[in-house]
């Protein structure tokens, strides 16, 4: 499998708590929030990589950097052999590779312009990025509506006249309108009803196979990962905790955080509560973190002295399986 997307040493930092003029005189510096810290990521052609982690761990920021909506602070993003990390996000909107990386947003209601009909929403990327298709826009939109099973009669409706599932279909049709090679999905199902979630996931799975796309699938639902992902990346406070295939992560989790995460999945069988690993303590602050301390220390059930003096790096645990923990053993 050749890598379609190769992200190396990616960092994204935000300045927070800008001090006032008097505080600045006293020598107070603004804090730096490390949302994404030295992340490496590879996605092969036609591969689905699940990105999981708790709220605020930086997975949405990482998705937005990869989708080139925001700029990285450091690191490279190689897409199909070209380093697109150096192109400013504002300029990337007009870049020829823009059509190859598309995105499906978390909230289908919020991601559709309330003043545009479904037709116009789906037609927007075609009109902007495929000037040759001007005469056939209507045909293309109808084709896409059929592809995502959106009834044609709904195309003239405004978003507020559509249901959540229908809005999600419009968002997906817009994202696949120009046959992108990489689709970044930022929790595409979390705003939907459970019954609709399954339908939309099946649709996404089918589209991937029919259009040969790769997915970067951001989610916090591990069942979704098991259903449609090939590989999983577990993120904790801006850093990669563990990366491996779905089988490796679910069968032999090496990082204590991954194990805790997996133990929190409901069994689905009433009365059979699985052995839960309870994490105590608060997560460390992502603002100005000490680069020598493991991010998980303080919540980790088996942290040692070494974890407080040396940041664990990703170490191989098996074929294509890495984890960032001093205590993890290769299988």
């Amino acid at each position, binding site marked *: 499998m050749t890598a379609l997307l190769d992200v190396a040493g990616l960092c994204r930092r935000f300045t927070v708590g800008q001090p006032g003029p008097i505080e600045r005189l006293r020598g107070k510096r603004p804090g730096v929030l490390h949302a994404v810290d030295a992340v490496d990521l590879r996605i092969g052609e036609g591969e689905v990589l699940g990105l999981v982690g708790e709220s605020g761990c930086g997975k949405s920021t990482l998705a*937005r950097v990869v*989708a080139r*909506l925001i700029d990285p602070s450091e690191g490279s993003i190689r897409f199909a052999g070209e380093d697109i990390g150096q192109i400013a*996000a*504002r300029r990337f*909107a*007009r870049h020829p590779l*823009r*059509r190859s*990386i*598309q*995105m499906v*947003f*978390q*909230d289908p209601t*919020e*991601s*559709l*312009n*309330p*003043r545009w009909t479904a037709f116009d929403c789906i037609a*927007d*990327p075609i009109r*902007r*990025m495929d000037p040759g298709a001007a005469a056939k826009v209507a045909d293309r939109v109808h084709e896409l509506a059929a592809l995502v099973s959106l009834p044609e009669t709904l195309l*003239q409706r*405004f978003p*507020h*006249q559509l249901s959540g599932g229908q809005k999600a279909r419009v*968002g997906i049709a*817009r*994202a696949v309108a120009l046959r992108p090679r990489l689709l970044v999905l930022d929790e595409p199902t979390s705003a939907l009803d459970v019954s609709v979630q399954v339908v939309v996931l099946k649709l996404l799975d089918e589209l991937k196979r029919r259009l040969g796309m790769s997915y970067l699938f951001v989610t916090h639902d591990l069942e979704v990962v098991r259903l449609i992902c090939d590989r999983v990346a577990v993120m904790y406070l801006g850093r990669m905790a563990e990366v491996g295939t779905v089988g490796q992560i679910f069968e032999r989790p090496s990082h204590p955080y991954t194990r805790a995460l997996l133990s929190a999945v409901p069994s689905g069988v009433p009365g059979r509560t699985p052995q839960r690993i309870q994490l105590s303590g608060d997560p460390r602050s992502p603002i100005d973190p000490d680069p020598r301390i493991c991010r998980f220390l303080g919540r980790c059930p088996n942290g040692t002295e070494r974890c407080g003096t040396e940041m664990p790096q990703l170490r191989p645990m098996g074929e294509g399986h890495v984890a960032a923990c001093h205590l993890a053993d290769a299988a």
Partner: protein
Amino acid sequence: MAAVQAYARHLRHVVTENPVTGAAFALFLLLVLTAILGPALVPFDPLQSDASRTLHPPSARHWFGTDQLGRDVFSRVVVATRLDMTIAFASVLLVFVTGTLTGVAAGHFGGWVDRLTGRIADTIMAFPLFVLAMGIVAALGNSIGNIVLATAVVNFPLYVRVARAEANVRRDAGFVEAARVSGNSEARVVLFHILPNTLPIMMVQVSLTLGYAILNAAGLSFIGLGVRPPTPEWGIMVADGANYIQSGEWWVALFPGLALMLAVFCFNLLGDGLRDLIDPRRRT
């Protein structure tokens, strides 16, 4: 064609849904028709004075009576509609275009654009607005163009502030990010995705400032700035009539004053209807 039909249906829905909106639209239509057709229909020449018929009370011949020069007040009130409405619409159009575009740019781009427009708006707001309008007209000269300009300048902060806030909350909304991913340049994002979404609120602003603009124009004429006699204009007519109220000739000031009140009233009631008209979310 289908879109036109859908829009006509939407218009009918908005007008019939709320009786107040319906009445406001009817009144508005009446004002516009008066402005267009009025001068051709009035029974007397509004400038023709008649020394033998000064200060006659309302009668079958002179519905609103006559003024101190024997001119027919009804004809003058009707003819003045066109001038007052033109000043109001021209100034509101001017400030709507400039204020909304500046405010949306300030809210979206932030930074120095935002700071500069904010300071300009603050500076304008620091003056008592009517005094500022007086100052502008007095300094630039007594012309209709300058009344329009002064009224627009005075309303500028209201448009900039509202448009800025409306654009600012949407600068990183989901549909704006989606527009960027769809290959829209920042200029297109602002003009085609953010600006249209600020319009419903701006329409309410338009209706409120229309009323204010007409009052402002009349007020300037009332104190002798702006439109000059003998041109029929509601503000001048109220000013003329004010001298006669104490001696019992109430009709000279009352009728232009009523016309003014009716116009302001109509514009203010129009606000909600205009917003509903321009907001597709109100469509059923």
